[in-house]
């Protein structure tokens, strides 16, 4: 994937988050403060304007700018978390003009590590990590099994979707939803859901859909 591919991916993410903004905010309304979808939409609109309209040839720079933009526009919890994830992926890709499927596990690893460092959450606390970590594990397994790109990514998407389902069954212990205690059970986590949409957009972009 080159600069054009990355720009297309980020545009696709922006598109799906825009389409799902109301849905994500509604999810957040049930167990948080109802702003997740619109905050993410605002952030990726800013990414389109500030980063994608005139992209850097350096993939690392692009991702770093995406991170900075998300951090300075999204606000709330998701802004710093996704922002940090993109910043870390940007550092990882610094100077690169091309990225391959083989680079992806490492990119996801540093992204997840960034989110965990920032948010101090682990798997099972009803956060975006419950979509991201399973997706990364599924990807690792698929690559170890020598699956082709789209198939491997589809495994990741399926694992993320399962992770989102799993968040319905658990109590939130991080983020705003944790104030609800037991009452958070039964609702799916908005951040896990937006993570799922991003991974799905990656698969769809690679599949050329």
């Amino acid at each position, binding site marked *: 994937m080159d600069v054009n591919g990355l720009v297309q991916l980020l545009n696709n993410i922006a598109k799906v988050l825009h389409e799902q903004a109301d849905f994500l905010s509604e999810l957040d309304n049930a167990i948080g*403060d*109802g*702003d997740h979808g619109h*905050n993410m939409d605002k952030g990726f609109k800013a990414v389109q304007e500030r980063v994608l309209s005139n992209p850097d040839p350096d993939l690392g720079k692009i991702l770093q700018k995406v991170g900075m933009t998300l*951090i*300075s*526009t*999204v*606000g*709330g*919890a*998701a*802004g*710093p*978390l996704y*922002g*940090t994830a993109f910043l870390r992926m940007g550092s990882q890709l610094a100077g690169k003009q091309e990225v391959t499927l083989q680079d992806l596990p490492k990119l996801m690893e540093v992204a997840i590590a960034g989110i965990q460092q*920032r*948010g101090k959450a682990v798997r099972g606390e009803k956060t975006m990590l419950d979509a991201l970590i399973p997706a990364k594990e599924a990807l690792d397994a698929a690559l170890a099994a020598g699956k082709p790109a789209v198939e491997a990514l589809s495994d990741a998407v399926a694992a993320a979707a399962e992770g989102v389902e799993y968040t319905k069954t658990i109590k939130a*212990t*991080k*983020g*705003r939803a*944790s*104030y609800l*205690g037991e009452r958070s059970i039964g609702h799916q986590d908005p951040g896990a859901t937006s993570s799922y949409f991003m991974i799905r957009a990656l698969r769809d972009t690679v599949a050329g859909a």
Partner: protein
Amino acid sequence: MKKLINAVESVVDDMLDGLVAAYPQYVRRIPGTNVITRAGGPTPGKVGLVSGGGSGHEPAHGGFVGYGMLDSAVAGAVFTSPTPDQVFEGIKAANGGAGVLLIIKNYTGDVMNFEMAGEMAQAEGIEVASVVVNDDVAVENSTWTTGRRGIAGTVLVHKIAGAKAQAGGTLQEVKAVAEKVIANVRSMGMALTPCTVPAAGKPGFELGENEVEIGIGIHGEPGTHREPLRPAKEIAEHLTQKVVDDLQLKAGEEVAVLINGMGATPLMELFIVNKAVHDFLKARGIKIYRTIVGEFMTSLEMAGCSVTVLRLDDELKELLDYPAETPAFRQGR
């Protein structure tokens, strides 16, 4: 939604401009930002104090910028944490060369955005420390959760840490006294009516004509439970009991009391609540050294109140009495 506003999009902007227009002797707005900072700041050699959070809590936080309290307050959108770049601007404006303390209310978003700003400032050579206020006993605490929320008790952290900094304390000392306040302050709130986030256009929850919501936060979210409206005395006693229990206050100890209105509560009612809180504490042999009654940490136009109790020692008493000159809190200079 019936509000004295111009447009949903401009409420924060108009509010900040209106604050600065009213009190130019105390505060100014850093152009192009949502940062309120001291009119003459930063103060060379003084530890800078920075706080902030989502808007909708007025006079918090911009109303507490000035002599003896904050140096900068950073405003986010209504009920949404400000972003790190904005907080970073606030830190720079507060930096008098002796380091900057961030006073953060305990919400995941606030904590992360302020911490990131702190890292940005440190990268530029500004010494930064931070404390996290978590006074709300309505939310249960445990090492495995996000912990208690920060609500009205934050204002007492501003007051006391602000006094320490104004009096020449070092960053370590200011941080230490802020942490002492945090360790000894607890609050709990209730609502008679919900509030409406301008962008949402409808209330965060609905209450019957005879219902109140107990254990509310300051973001229009529902509380821990709902019950029928009772006499003010009973409600006040319930809130105070929770706070006193959590603090494990004993007879003979001295406290400060903050009776905080949620935005739409008339002072008459806050005074009536205060009487009940005083009677309750006195009956338990707890000495009230200072009381503050008014609207300090609000939740838009929510009607209701919170009760905050701070356990005092000689150091805290002295700092509580230290002069302050800000738009929303002033006392003998």
